[in-house]
């Protein structure tokens, strides 16, 4: 990305602004405080997952089991509470399960050296099947009365702002500080940029890879809790939906290259906002669902085409490929 050129992040941000202006002029109720809050709230879970995925992608990996693990572990927590276990205990067990699976993912990628895309794809399917057969009776697990305390995380407000927005902001801040200031955060970027070089300079490359999947499962679990609190239930069918691709979309759209090492949390925020503006505006316009998909796809392609024209592939990407 040369000087004077627009980065993909800036292009997407510009596109989001353009859409915002367009909607604001065309739709009377778009640019009100309440609608903007609602817009951000509606994509904050997507954004939290985006941070998790972003961290893995910056480390030159990908986590396709993110959504499956989130759905199954949180649904299991609710199920356990439903059968009479105290809420904190159920949450701790489910979180431990989630972190364990994250570590196994990391181990498969770092030590067994299976490509991340295959390891996590298989893991996602495995977790969903395991969860549905051994852990849960039904597709959708409802929030039991005993777990009502956590509803606030998804449905409450603080100073008039929905709580999920604060959580999104907190996860972003945490992710940013981690990448910027933590030693392991810098290692993560180094490993993503060039694993061999990082290793030669003494970075513990394999543990760093494990760490990125553990982090992703941790943040994913948080996103799951917010999801469950937000709609008072957990639908395990999310695991086999295309939701995980939406998450990747947010990450890639924001400008975190799939070749690793580049980008930051800001990119995730920008990508999330564009999707949020799009969805919100189209819902207000009452555009039919199938047509919405067409528009969403067209705008995403446009963003990518503009990026390819303004920032041609360099030699490094050509050699490594995008994933």
């Amino acid at each position: 990305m040369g000087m004077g050129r627009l980065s993909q992040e800036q292009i997407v941000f510009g596109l989001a602004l353009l859409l915002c202006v367009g909607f604001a002029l065309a739709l009377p109720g778009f640019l009100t405080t309440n609608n903007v809050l609602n817009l951000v709230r509606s994509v904050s879970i997507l954004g939290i997952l985006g941070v998790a995925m972003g961290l893995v992608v910056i480390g030159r990996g990908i986590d396709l089991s993110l959504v499956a693990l989130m759905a199954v572990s949180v649904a299991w927590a609710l199920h356990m509470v439903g059968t009479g276990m105290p809420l904190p205990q159920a949450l701790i067990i489910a979180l431990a399960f989630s972190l364990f699976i994250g570590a196994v993912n990391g181990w498969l990628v770092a030590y067994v050296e299976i490509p991340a895309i295959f390891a996590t794809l298989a893991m996602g399917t495995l977790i969903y099947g395991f969860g549905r057969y051994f852990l849960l009776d039904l597709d959708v697990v409802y929030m039991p009365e005993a777990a009502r305390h956590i509803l606030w995380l998804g449905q409450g407000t603080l100073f008039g702002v929905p709580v999920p927005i604060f959580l999104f902001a907190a996860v972003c801040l945490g992710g940013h500080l981690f990448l910027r200031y933590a030693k392991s955060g810098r290692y993560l970027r180094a490993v993503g940029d060039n694993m061999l070089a990082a290793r030669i300079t003494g970075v513990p490359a394999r543990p760093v890879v494990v760490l990125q999947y553990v982090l992703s499962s941790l943040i994913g679990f948080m996103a799951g809790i917010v999801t469950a609190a937000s709609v008072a239930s957990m639908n395990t069918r999310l695991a086999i939906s295309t939701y995980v691709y939406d998450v990747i979309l947010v990450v890639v759209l924001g400008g975190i290259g799939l070749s690793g090492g580049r980008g930051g949390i800001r990119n995730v925020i920008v990508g999330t906002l564009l999707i949020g503006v799009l969805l919100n505006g189209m819902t207000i316009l009452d555009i039919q669902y199938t047509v919405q998909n067409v528009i969403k796809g067209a705008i995403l392609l446009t963003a990518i085409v503009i990026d390819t024209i303004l920032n041609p592939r360099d030699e490094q990407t050509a050699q490594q490929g995008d994933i």
Partner: protein
Amino acid sequence: MRRILTGLLAAGLAACAGSALAQGIDDPTRAPYYDSFAGKRVAYIPVAMGFDLTEGWAAGLKEALEPLGMSIDIRDPNWSTDAGAQALTSLITEKPDVIVVHNPDVQSYARLLKRAEEAGIYVVQVNMRSAYSTDVFVGADYVGMGEQIGQRMVDKCAPANGGSGKVAITQGVLTAAASIYQMQGITNVLSKHPEIQLVSNQAADWDSTKAKNIAATVIQQHPDLCMITGFWDVMDVGTAAAIKESGKPVYLLTQGGGNRMVCDGLANGTYSESVVYFVPGQARDMANMIKYLLQQKQPAGATKTTLFTKLDFLTKDNMTAASCWDMPTKG
């Protein structure tokens, strides 16, 4: 001597009659009844197991048919239309006696269902109809249901009745029979009532998170929204959350199979009203039709029967402990 003989004869006759009375007379329809079911196989293909409707039907069929010596074989395609079509194809060669099928949409299975009937297998469709009509359809009359829902919108929301006239609809997927037929019914009514304004008509893919985001945006844009009607109670948990967060008195009319969770939701104010097609009743209808077909022994496809399920409009006020049913426990 003669007296003694007569006495003995009388005593003998009495004894015979007595023993005959003690044994009772055999019901002549009993043996053929049980014979027509023993060892018969029923295959069941829902869109997916793991939710109230399909689990409820499976439990009801098992309860009614297994004691008669029939076997129920569940093929779970888990929301994959392809897997369902494959299961159907392999069943056609396996030749069970009856196939119970829950169609994901009106087209996908149509040709296969025809082939199954041609192969001599009775086909029972439940709740979501295919374009091809088979021996039996048991389920809600969705066009009629849509008309009743449209009428509820008018009753609740027409300006003449004190409402704002603004209503919104959250569908599941647009191609499901449930959605298509119901929209037809709703349109039938609303076209005669221009005072009712349909401000949003969106599909949420049966997903509660999407339903929530749609409802939140619509309420934001139309703070005087009168009613949202959603096409499935499980999805409308999300719609309910959006209404609760907005603090607006939006009337939520949902629908579903009348699982206990719906009555709980009506009681605690999650839903305002629910249109219920009682799942155990549908299971009983299916089981009875299967018993009928197996006793009649006519070739598959010879008769076409439709049994529409009675619809209950449940609210907090008119529901009773018996209005909803409990999910069978696994084991």
